């Protein structure tokens, strides 16, 4: 298990996004990765309940809604991952005693769901105009039984993999903001996946830049 193959499996599926598609939320975005699709809506800064208020910063609440059934522990775990990433980048001290609510609706799950949620969340926060110190993106890697690393796996590839990792990468220094892993892998494999995710994140950040440039092309 010395040398990990990082050959043809490293492709990012076709991705796309649309911003400002809902009229009620302050910011909304949908992000598609292959067939996986997540819709994000942001409200804020808004009034916060007294029992939830923090005196010097905004309170961030994340809700992940599955398509079928009631939300369970799995959704709570995803909410935690997304919330920690967002709290690391949002300048919440600019809005003390306010609430920021981020709602993620799973529209279709075909693998890499957590990274799709992260990307949709970032685009929705940008659309809402909330002040952020840096942007973030999510990349999922899977290690299959032949020790090959696959980025942005489909649901089928996730099922057959022996390890699955999602990293939230920041835009300034490509640091890892959050990592969520499942399965067994070696330290070397982990570092390779992190390095690979950092490379892949460049494409996604370029996509953010292009989307925003396109959106404000008529104004600027």
């Amino acid at each position, binding site marked *: 298990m010395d040398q990990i193959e990082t050959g043809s499996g490293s492709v990012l599926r*076709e991705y796309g996004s649309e911003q400002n598609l809902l009229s009620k939320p302050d910011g909304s975005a949908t992000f598609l990765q292959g067939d996986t699709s997540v819709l994000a809506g942001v409200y804020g800064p808004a009034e916060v309940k007294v029992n939830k208020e923090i005196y010097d910063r905004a309170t961030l609440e994340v809700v992940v*809604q599955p398509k079928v059934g009631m939300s369970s522990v799995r959704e709570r775990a995803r909410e935690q991952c997304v919330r920690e990433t967002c709290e690391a980048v949002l300048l919440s001290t600019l809005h003390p005693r306010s609430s920021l609510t981020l709602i993620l609706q799973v529209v*279709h799950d*075909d693998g890499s769901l957590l990274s799709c949620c992260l990307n949709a969340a970032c685009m929705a926060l940008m659309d809402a105009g909330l002040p952020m110190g840096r942007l973030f993106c999510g990349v999922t890697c899977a290690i299959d039984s032949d020790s090959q690393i696959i980025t942005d796996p489909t649901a089928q590839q996730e099922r057959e993999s022996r390890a699955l990792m999602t990293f939230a990468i920041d835009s300034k220094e490509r640091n890892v903001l959050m990592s969520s892993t499942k399965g067994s892998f070696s330290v070397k494999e982990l570092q*390779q996946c992190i*390095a690979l995710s950092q*490379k892949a994140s460049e494409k996604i950040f370029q*996509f953010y830049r292009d989307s925003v440039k396109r959106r404000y092309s008529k104004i600027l």
Partner: protein
Amino acid sequence: KTRKLEKNCYRKSYVWLIHMATRLDGRQTYDYRNIRITFGTDYGCCTVSLGKTRVLAQVSCELVPPKDSRPTEGIVFFNLELSPMASPAFQPNRQSELLVTLNRQLERCLRNSKCIDTESLCVVSGEKVWQIRVDVHVLNHDGNLMDAASIAAISALSHFRRPDVAIQGRDITIFSPEERDPVALSIYHMPICVSFAFFQQGTYLLVDPCEKEEQVTDGLLVIAMNKHREICSIQSSGGIMLLKDQVLRCSKIASVKVSEITDLINKALENDKRVRKEGGRFGFAESMPKERITALKRDEAPVEMTGVQEMAEEFLSKGEAAPEVVSSPVIVATGTGQLGEGVQSTWGLEEEDEEDECQGEMDKEEKKKKKAEKGTAFTFHQLFFFHFSDEVMVISDSEEEEVVVLNPEAPYVFSLFSEYSYQ
């Protein structure tokens, strides 16, 4: 107080507008907003946009035992959820009156009208029937949630395919979608709700009210009807009193609207069927508008591999040497496994600190055993302590001499966390 003032202002201006026979968004009194129906990649997934109101519906199925009172009929279950995304007034997990009203009306419209043939959902009478579950999520609230929800629900039901089942005597075989093509539900007719908003005690009426209009309306009338001009349900709320000819006029308008909407749904279903048959691209990814300035799409992109190995080597060389890696825990007996062995504590804690932890449910003190099944998720931290071992390690320094391996048949509960005893 300001809300009431606002409402009154709105009301007055609205009534004046309607009197002049126009609406705020330029529609006529009997006009519907633009309806857009798109289907997702898997069967039974549908998004409906009624103007700015957006609703997502998903149909799923599962085999369950039938209700005692109806052993030969399948079950259809509706669940409408007001996502907190749809409006700042919707909080998660809060049962509001609007939610109950919408759920009830959706049930009456689709279940009581018997539009789905529940007898065909029976697999083994009295034992196994299909339960069809329809989840409707409201994504954006700009008025007239009822109509949008009913259109989404019936479109999703018409689009849905359940797995094929073969019964031979007592053996039931359920085929996966790859083995045999899934089967459509048997739907007799498509009931669709049409909402009417009344103003000035029934003098003025509007079809398909938007959110601002809904807020100032006196009363609401919802008629569920199908293409064959059969009324499936009528509901009047708000406490206004309507005359017989008003209700008849509404039902005539409804029948026209319902036939238009049914044609639209059928066209969308036909399109989707055709695209799937031709092997073209389908799903929400395709229906995303490309020509909008707020939307962007990128094709499949390979990730550049140059320098990845070097980057990884750099990180590894900076850190300390990693220990040997093992990919599975030692399975000692069924349901009991061992994960690593302890290391010297660097905390310098006293011995008696962790004695209290071992009380509780254990009669006999247990060594570092952790109930682990194959393929359980291990945290990265624990991986540092993987070691190959065939035998049980005695790690702790406890006073008990014998090592006891707990069996799953034991009557007491085995707690899941592992304790490291420090020296």
